[in-house]
C-alpha cells in the first residue's frame, strides 16, 4: 500500500475549513436571494403612509439611526443579561451533568426532577424571579435566561458523558486506567459535541428568557421595555428595530459558539461532512 494517499499532505482540519467556505457560499446563496427579494416586496407593499403596524424595512432601518442611542444602551443591557444567563445556566447545567454522570445516586435523584421541572412553564416564573432578585436587578433577567438554558445543557452534557461505546470502556479497563483517565480521555471528549449543540440552543433561549423577563418589569433601557413602550406610543418602527436587535444578538452569539466549536473540535465537522466514505 502506498504510504500517503492524496489526503496525506493536507491537515484534515484545514481541509474541512477550505471546503466549507466554498460550500457555505453555495449553500446560503439561495436563502440570501430569497431574503433580499422578500425585503424588496415588503418595502413595496408597505410603501405610503398609514402602514405603521408593519413598517417598511427602510423605515425600520431609519429607526436604528434615529434611536441609535437608546437602542445601543438597551441592546447592550439585554445582551449582558442574556450572556450572564447563558453562562450561569450553562455552568450549572454542566455541573449537574458531571454529578449525574459520576454518581448513580445523583442520576437517580436529579434526572427525574430535572425532567419533571422542564414541564414547568418557565416563562410564568419570570414575575416570581423579578420579585426574588428585585425587579431592577439584572440578576432577575439573568436568572430567567439561566433557567431556560439549564435544561438542554444538563441533559445533553449528561448524555455526552454517559453514552460512551461500552467497548471503549473495556479498552480503558484493559489499560488498567483510573476513573479520572476515563473521564478526561474518553467521556469529556465524547461529550464536547453534545455540549456545543446544547450551547447553540442555549444562545437563542438566553435571549428569549432575558427579553421575556424584561416584559414583566424592570429598568426601561432594555430591549423588552423598548419594544413594549414604543408599541404603546405607536412607534412600531422602533419596536421592530428592538426585536431585530434581539435577533441579531442571538444570531451573533450562535455564530460565536459555532466558531468556537470549529476551533475546539475541528474533527467533528470534518466527520459530519464525511471526509471519506
Amino acid at each position, binding site marked *: 500500500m502506498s504510504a500517503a494517499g492524496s489526503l496525506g499532505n493536507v491537515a*484534515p482540519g484545514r481541509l474541512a475549513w477550505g471546503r466549507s467556505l466554498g460550500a457555505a457560499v453555495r449553500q446560503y446563496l439561495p436563502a440570501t436571494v430569497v431574503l433580499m427579494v422578500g425585503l424588496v416586496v415588503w418595502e413595496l407593499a408597505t410603501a405610503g403612509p398609514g402602514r405603521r403596524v408593519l413598517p417598511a424595512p427602510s423605515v425600520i432601518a431609519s429607526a436604528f439611526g434615529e434611536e441609535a442611542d437608546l437602542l445601543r444602551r438597551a441592546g447592550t443591557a439585554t445582551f449582558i443579561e442574556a450572556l450572564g444567563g447563558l453562562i450561569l445556566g450553562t455552568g450549572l447545567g454542566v455541573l449537574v451533568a458531571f454529578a449525574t454522570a459520576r454518581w448513580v445516586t445523583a442520576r437517580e435523584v436529579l434526572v427525574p426532577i430535572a425532567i419533571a421541572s422542564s414541564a414547568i412553564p418557565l416563562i410564568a416564573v419570570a414575575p416570581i424571579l423579578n420579585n426574588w432578585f428585585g425587579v431592577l436587578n439584572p440578576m432577575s433577567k439573568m436568572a430567567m435566561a439561566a433557567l431556560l438554558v439549564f435544561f438542554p445543557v444538563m441533559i445533553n452534557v449528561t448524555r455526552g458523558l454517559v453514552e460512551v461505546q461500552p467497548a471503549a470502556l473495556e479498552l480503558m*479497563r484493559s489499560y488498567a486506567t483510573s476513573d479520572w483517565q476515563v473521564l478526561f*480521555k474518553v467521556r469529556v*471528549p465524547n461529550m464536547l459535541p453534545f455540549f456545543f449543540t446544547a450551547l447553540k440552543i442555549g444562545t437563542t433561549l438566553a435571549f428569549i428568557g432575558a427579553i421575556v423577563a424584561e416584559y414583566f418589569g424592570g429598568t426601561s433601557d432594555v430591549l423588552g421595555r423598548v419594544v413594549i413602550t414604543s408599541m404603546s406610543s405607536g412607534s412600531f418602527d422602533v419596536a421592530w428595530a428592538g426585536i431585530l436587535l434581539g435577533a441579531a444578538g442571538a444570531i451573533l452569539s450562535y455564530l460565536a459558539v459555532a466558531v468556537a466549536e470549529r476551533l475546539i473540535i475541528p474533527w*467533528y465537522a*470534518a466527520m459530519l461532512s464525511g471526509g471519506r466514505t
Partner: protein
Amino acid sequence: MTTEKPARSTVDEAGPAVSLDGVSKIFPVRGGGETVALQDIGLAIAPTEFVSLIGPSGCGKSTLLRVIGDLIEPSSGTVMVNGKPAQRARADRDYGMVFQAPVLFEWRTVEANVRLPLEVMGLDRGQRDGRVREMLDLVELGGFGSHYPHQLSGGMQQRVAIARALAFQPALLLMDEPFGALDEMTRERLNTEVLGIWSRTGTTIIFVTHSIPEAVFLSTRVVVMSARPGRITNVIDIDLPQPRNEQTRESDRYFELVTEVRESLRGRVAASPARARAEGGIG
C-alpha cells in the same frame, strides 16, 4: 523488540502465557434462572502460541477472552496470565486487546489513537512518538498518522486498532473477532498481516473467530467450543508449516484440517436446527 520490555522476566517466560483451570461463568438471567456461559474450562497456552477459539454463537468464546483479560470475573476457577492472577496481569498491562469494532476515538488522529495507551501508561514524549511511528509502520499505515479514523476504510481502522494494542509491547494479544465485520478479501489480507506481526514480535495471540478457514490458517492450535453450556469440546493442533502464505490456503493438509474443525463443530451442533443455521454462517 520484546527484549525491550523489562516487565517480561525470564520466570514468566518459562511458564505458560495463559493457564485456565476449572473456569466457569454463570450469568443470572432476567426473571430468574441462569445461563452457564462457561463450564469447567481448562486450557494452557504456551508463550508465542497462536490459539483460536471457535464455536457457535453463545458458546462463550468472547466471554472466555474477557475472563482472560480480567474484563469479566469468572464465577469459579483460576485464571493465570504470565504466571500471575489475571487481575494482576491486567494491572501490569500484560496484554493488548482488539475488539470486533475498531473502537477508535474519532476526536483523535490515527497517531493519537495509537499513542493513547502510552499516554495512559505515562511514557515520556520521545519514547511515545518513536513507538507510535514504529507501530504504524508495522501495520503499514506509516503515511496515515495525521488522518482521522473516519477518513480510513474499515480494514485500515482495524489495523490502527492492532497497532494501538501492540504499542506498549504486551506479551499477549487478545483479539475478539477482529475481522468479523470486514469483507473476505480484506480479511484474508489482514490474516496474512497478523501472522507477519505475530512471527516478528513473538507475541502470544488468542483469537476469537466464527470462521473455520481463518482459525485454521492463523493458528498453531484451534480450540473448539460448544454452546449451552459453553465448554471446550476439542483442541486441534494445526501442524501447517510456517511461514504460512497463499499456498497454505491451497494445500491438502489445510483442507483436511478445515474439515476436521468443521466436523468437530458439527459433532455438537448438528442436533438443533438453530445451531446448524449458526454454523452455516461459518467460513
